[in-house]
C-alpha cells in the first residue's frame, strides 16, 4: 500500500516539476502574475467606489435669503457634491436633469423664510433616478441635511428643533464609515486567484493537446489524473504567493489587515484554489480548441465576478440569481474571506464554505476523469 502511494506521489511530483519548468519560461504568465495584483490594488484601492462624489446639481433658490443660502451651503459641505449651478427657472433646471448635466435639482420656494418662521419649512428635491444607487444616496444625504437643519439659527427664537420622535443610534460594525475600499480589499485575493487559476489551467491542457504534447505525456507510466494533479501543484504554490501579495498589499498600502486568523485564511484558500483549477481543467477538457477554452473561461470568470458577491452584495439579488451564484467557487471563497478579513472570524466560522468548495472540487474531478480519457484517434 505504501509503495503504491509513494509511486503515485513521485509520479505527481515529476509532472509538477516539468510543469514548473514550463511556467517559469512563460512570459505572459509572469507578466499577469506581476501586473495584476498591482493594477487591482490601485483600481480598487483608489479609483472604484459606489459612494457618490463630484455630483453635479442645480439650485433654484426662489427665496434667496440667508436661511436658504445656509441650507445650500450645508448640502455642499457634505463633500459629495460639486459647487451648485444656480438656475432661474424650473424649466431650465429640468432641462439640466434631462440632459444628465445635473443629477439633482433643489427647489427652494419663494416663501421659504415665512415657512421657517412658521416652523414648517419645505423644499423640493428632484433627482435623476437613472442610476438608482447614486439617486438613493443623494436623497439620503439631502434628507439628512434637511432633517438636521437648525431653523433657530436664522429666526432668533428658541424653538426646540426636535427632529425625530425616536432617536436612532446608528452604528456600522467592522467599517464605521462604510468605505468601499474595505469591501474590495477583503476579496482582492479571490479575484486574483480566480483569474490566475482559471485562465492558466483552461489554456494549458488544450494547448498541449493542440501541440500534441498531452498525448506524449499519456505515453508515460502515469494516469491522466496524476498528470492533472501534477499540473496543478506548482500553481498552488503561485496561488499562495499571490494571496500573500494581496494581503500584504492591502495591509501595507491601505492599512487593512485581516482581523481574523491568518491560519484560517491559509486553510480556506486551498479548497478554493483546487476548485478554481478544477473549473479550469474541466473547461479545458470540454473545449476542442484554444479559442473555445478562452471563450468558456472568460465567460465563466466575468459572471463569477458579477454574481458571486465580490462586486455587488449577493443578498440584494433576486432569489433565482442569488442561487445561481452558489455554483461559482468565488461565491464561497468571498464569504470566507469577508468573514476572516473583515469580521475577524476564526477557522470554525468558515468550515461551511470550505466544505462547499471541496464538494465543488470533487464533482469537477469526476467530470474531468470522465472527459480526459485518452483520445488518440
Amino acid at each position, binding site marked *: 500500500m505504501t509503495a503504491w502511494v509513494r509511486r503515485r506521489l513521485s509520479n505527481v511530483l515529476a509532472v509538477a516539476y516539468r510543469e514548473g519548468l514550463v511556467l517559469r519560461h512563460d512570459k505572459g504568465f509572469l507578466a*499577469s502574475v506581476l*501586473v495584476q495584483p498591482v*493594477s487591482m490594488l490601485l*483600481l480598487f484601492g483608489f*479609483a472604484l467606489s*459606489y459612494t457618490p462624489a463630484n*455630483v453635479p446639481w442645480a439650485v433654484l433658490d426662489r427665496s434667496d435669503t440667508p436661511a436658504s443660502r445656509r441650507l445650500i451651503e450645508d448640502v455642499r459641505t457634505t463633500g459629495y457634491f460639486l459647487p451648485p449651478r444656480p438656475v432661474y427657472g424650473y424649466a431650465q433646471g429640468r432641462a439640466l*436633469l*434631462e*440632459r*444628465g448635466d445635473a443629477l439633482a435639482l433643489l427647489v427652494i420656494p419663494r416663501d421659504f423664510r415665512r415657512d421657517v418662521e412658521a*416652523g414648517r*419649512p*419645505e*423644499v*423640493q428635491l*428632484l433627482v*435623476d433616478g*437613472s442610476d*438608482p*444607487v*447614486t439617486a*438613493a444616496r443623494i436623497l439620503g444625504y439631502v*434628507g439628512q441635511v*434637511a432633517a*438636521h437643519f437648525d*431653523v433657530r439659527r436664522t429666526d432668533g427664537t428658541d*424653538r*426646540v428643533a*426636535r427632529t425625530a*420622535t*425616536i432617536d*436612532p*443610534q*446608528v*452604528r*456600522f*460594525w*467592522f467599517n*464605521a464609515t*462604510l468605505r*468601499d475600499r474595505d*469591501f474590495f480589499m477583503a476579496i482582492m485575493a479571490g479575484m486574483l486567484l480566480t483569474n490566475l487559476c482559471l*485562465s492558466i489551467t483552461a489554456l494549458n491542457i488544450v494547448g498541449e493537446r493542440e501541440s500534441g504534447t498531452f498525448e506524449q505525456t499519456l505515453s508515460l507510466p502515469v494516469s491522466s489524473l496524476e498528470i492533472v494533479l501534477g499540473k496543478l501543484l506548482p500553481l498552488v504554490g503561485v496561488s499562495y504567493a499571490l494571496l500573500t501579495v494581496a494581503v500584504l498589499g492591502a495591509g501595507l498600502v491601505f492599512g487593512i489587515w485581516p482581523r481574523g486568523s491568518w491560519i484560517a485564511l491559509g486553510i480556506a484558500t486551498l479548497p478554493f484554489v483546487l476548485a478554481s483549477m478544477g473549473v479550469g481543467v474541466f473547461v479545458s477538457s470540454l473545449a476542442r480548441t484554444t479559442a473555445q477554452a*478562452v*471563450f468558456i473561461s472568460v*465567460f465563466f470568470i466575468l*459572471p463569477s465576478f*458579477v*454574481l458571486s458577491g465580490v*462586486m*455587488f*452584495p449577493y*443578498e*440584494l*439579488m433576486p432569489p433565482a*440569481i442569488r442561487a445561481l451564484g452558489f455554483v461559482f467557487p468565488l461565491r464561497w471563497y468571498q*464569504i470566507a474571506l469577508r*468573514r476572516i478579513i473583515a*469580521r475577524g472570524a476564526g477557522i470554525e466560522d468558515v468550515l461551511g464554505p470550505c466544505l462547499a468548495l471541496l464538494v465543488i472540487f470533487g464533482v469537477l474531478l469526476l467530470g474531468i476523469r470522465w472527459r480526459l480519457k485518452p483520445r488518440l484517434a
Partner: protein
Amino acid sequence: MSRRRIWTLVRREVRATFRDPFTVSILIAVPIVALLAFSFVISSEVHGLRLAVLDGDRSPESRRLVADIGSTGWFVPEPVGTRVEIERALQAGTLRVALVVPADFSRRLREGLAPPEVQLLYDGAEPVLAGNAEGALRGIVAASGGRLVRAPATPGGIRVATGVLFNPRLDGTPFMVAGTFGFVLSFLTTLITAVAIVGERLAGTFDQLQVTPATSLEILLGKLLPLGAIFAVDVVLMMLVAGMLFGVWPAGSALLFIAVSAFYVLVSLSLGLIFSATSATAAEAVEKTVLFSIPLVQMSGFAFPVRNMPMPVQWIAELFPATHYIRVSRGIYLRGEGPIDLFPELVALAIFGFVLLLLARRTLEARA
C-alpha cells in the same frame, strides 16, 4: 476599391462564421445570458433581510415598532435573547442588521421628555447593503415613531418633498440593461475578432487573402461589415429580450440607439483587429483582449460611476470608447436623450472610430 471584391470577402466571412456552431452559439447565448445575469444585480433597496431584534422593553409600543418594521417586507424581524447573540452573529457573517430596544423605551415615549433611543447595528463589511438597509430602516423608524407619540412633537428641520425623474421606483434593472449593451458590444466583439483572425493566421488562410488582388482596406471592410451586421442583429435581439422579459424599452429613439450601436460595434471590431494583428499567437491576442477588458468592466462606468473616481483616473476612463458608448446607451435608454444632448459623446465616439479604423488598416498593411 472594388465593390465586387468586397462582396466576395463579405460572403466568405459570413460563411466562415456560420460554419462554426460554437461561434454561432456564443453569438446568441452570451448577449442573452449577460442580460439575464447582470440586469438584477444592482439594487437600491433591501428585500426580506433578516433583522435581529433585542427587545429589552417588551411593551406594546416596542412590539408595535417591530411590527411596523416587519410589515414593509423589507426586513424579517427575528427576536434574540441577548446582545452577545447579536455580536456573535454579526461576527460570523450570518446577520446584517440588528435592532436593540432599550428597557426604558416605552417609559420615555410616554413621558415625552427626551425622545427614546433605539440602537441600529449594521454589518459594515457590506457597505452597499448596510447603506440601503440604513436608508430604509431610518424611514420606517421615523414614521413609526410619529405614530407612537400621542402629542405630535414640534416639527423641526426641513421637510423635503422628493421627486424622482426617469425611474421613479429606483429600479436597478434599466440601468444595468443599458450598461450590458456596452459590456457585450465591447467585449464579445473584440474577443471574437481577435480569436478569429489569429485562427486564420495559424491556418494560413490570412496570408492567402493578402496575395489576392484585394487591398488592405477591402480586406478590412470584408471582415468588419459582416461581423458588424451580425452584432447589429445581436443588438436588436438584446433590445427585444430586455423589452419583452423585463419591460425595459429605450425611452428615446430606438433607431438612434441601433445606429450608434452599429457604429460602436465597428469601433470595437477594429480594436480586436489591432490586437490580433499585433500578436503572434492566439494566446497573446487573447491576453491583450482580456487585459484590456478588465479595466473596461471596472472603469467604463458599467458598474462604478466614472464620476466617483479621482480626477486623473477619470481622464484615463475617458480614453476608453466603452465609457462614451455606455453614456450614450444610458442616455437614450433611461433619459430619452436625443442626438443634440448626446453630441459631445457622439463626437468622441466618431473620433475613436476614425482613429481605430485607420490604425486597423495600417496594421493590416504592415503585415502584408
